[in-house]
């Protein structure tokens, strides 16, 4: 029982990392109508910035985190204003391919500025753990899980209950109509990219203590975040978040109970089988094509 609970807590932590990245992807998808494959790469790049800042100034870890999220915020704005905005009239497939270009760009810039060796980023709470019903959970893990959930709840509240949140949902539903209604869609899209990038950076820095900061640190997270969006469906904001936790849990269960080396691959096999039977995800709705 206690091993199961242990797994549960570590799944919640992994799930939070995936959920933050997935949330970033779905925010951009619903406002710009394109899939951001570069979510992980942007997070990785800004994780490097945060780690570099930490090394140079010796500031507390939380401050480095905020620096990372802030630089991510600006990276997001730069990407939207400098690149994506010029591609307003091109097909969704082409816009998606621009994000492939972004992946390569960051894959090249990161080692150019920061070198190729991995750097280490410490946990937010360095030591200490607590016993919960027989499972040993670190304070850091609790922090990560709580921050993740709190942030997501805050975002959902923002979306549902505030004026700007309404602006986001309207832009997500139909950008042209939103513009006609006087919604500042350009600001909304820019904000979406900024927030998504920050979430990606947070996700990367939560992950960093476990696997070190390196160019491929977010590769796994990127794929799992995308799968979370497919599972949860691209039609809602909360779907991918749920999907992320499901994936975190499934992955940990498979790795522990079935095979630690094949756990990850098995997850993808299950995902493929699932997608064949339910092409629209757990929650997604089917669209009937009009001929």
């Amino acid at each position: 029982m206690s091993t199961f609970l242990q797994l549960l807590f570590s799944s919640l932590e992994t799930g939070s990392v995936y959920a933050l990245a997935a949330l970033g992807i779905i925010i951009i998808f619903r406002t710009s109508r394109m899939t951001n494959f570069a979510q992980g790469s942007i997070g990785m790049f800004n994780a490097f910035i945060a780690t570099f800042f930490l090394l140079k100034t010796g500031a507390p870890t939380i401050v480095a985190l905020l620096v990372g999220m802030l630089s991510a915020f600006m990276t997001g704005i730069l990407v939207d204003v400098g690149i994506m905005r010029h591609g307003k009239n091109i097909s969704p497939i082409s816009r998606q391919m621009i994000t492939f270009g972004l992946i390569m760009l960051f894959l090249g810039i990161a080692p150019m500025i920061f070198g190729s060796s991995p750097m280490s980023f410490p946990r937010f709470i360095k030591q200490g753990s607590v016993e919960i019903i027989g499972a040993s959970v670190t304070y850091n893990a609790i922090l990560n899980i709580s921050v993740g959930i709190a942030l997501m709840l805050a975002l959902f509240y923002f979306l549902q209950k505030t004026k700007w949140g309404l602006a986001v949902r309207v832009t997500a539903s139909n950008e042209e109509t939103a513009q006609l209604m006087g919604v500042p869609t350009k600001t909304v899209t820019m904000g979406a990219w900024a927030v998504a990038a920050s979430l990606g950076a947070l996700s990367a820095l939560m992950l960093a203590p476990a696997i070190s900061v390196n160019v491929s640190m977010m590769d796994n997270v990127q794929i799992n975040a995308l799968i979370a969006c497919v599972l949860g469906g691209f039609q809602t904001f909360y779907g991918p978040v749920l999907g992320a936790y499901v994936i975190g849990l499934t992955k940990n269960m498979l790795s522990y109970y079935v095979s630690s080396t094949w756990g990850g691959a098995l997850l993808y096999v299950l995902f493929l089988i699932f997608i064949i039977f339910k092409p629209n995800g757990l929650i997604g709705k089917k669209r009937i094509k009009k001929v």
Partner: protein
Amino acid sequence: MKKTYTKYILIGLAFIIAPFLQQLGVISSSSIIVLGTVMFYSIVSIGLNVLLGYSGLISLGTAGFMGMGAYISAYLTQDLGLPFILSLIISVTIPLFIGLIIGLISLRIEGYYLAIATLGVAEIFRQVFVELDFFTGGFSGKNAGYPDLGVFTLDKMWTYILIAVCLIAIMIITHNIVYSRSGRALLTMRGSEPAAQAMGINLLKYRLMAFGIATLYAALGGVLYVHFIRFAYPSGWNVNLSLQILAVIVIGGMRTITGPVLGAIVVFGVPELILKQLPIIGNVDGLAYIFTGILIIVVILFYPNGLIYIGNDIKKLFKRRHHEKETVSDH
């Protein structure tokens, strides 16, 4: 028709001259290796072009299929001692079957969902390459030799020439396919599924065809890779490589036969042959990725048909200048 074949043969010959230039000391030995890789990546890219450019289907698992072809052929020739031709046939057939299965799956899922699903497939391949180490050599990689054609074994130069011959053949065959009834069916499937169905085009059959061709070419590229470079390691067959191949057709030009060749030269040739030789920035890590990344973005935004059309546009510019000159002198 025959005129276009000449174009392809000339491109192949241009590549074939290289080893002779090397013997004369005009270009270095390492350049031959780079040109060889440009050629087999061209083959793989032409395959992806049939899938994405002509049929409108996306796959991010191309590198995985290359790897499969490479490992199977390495195993068959090194561990089982099979002759090259036989190994080649087997090494492209097995990945072909898996590619057809993905084609089946693609009927159920579309667009970005398909892209994400192929990502999952690529990850499964990657794990298999690492874990099945009796077959793939695991992290330490797998060796192979130059092609053994039974009567004699090729050396580096003749393997290079073999790759060039394969490239010419692939260009001609693909040209034939895309300008035939099959090619029109693929383009119709891409352009309008309702129209395709109304015209009797069986979507399943043509999706299988598209995935089949792409997988076949990718596996062939992998076989040529492993018998030219004579080494394969698992982390090389990752999503980044798949993205680079995608970059090749986007930058070079989709829906043309020579576009991917141009794109391969730009993505795989220029960084090694030109960028790395540049003073100061030549030694910077990640330069190739930055170069390719910026190019993809610039081409998509400002030159969506690909760089292959630059030739046409330059011609048009000259025609216009000439025309303007005439009208001015009329006064």
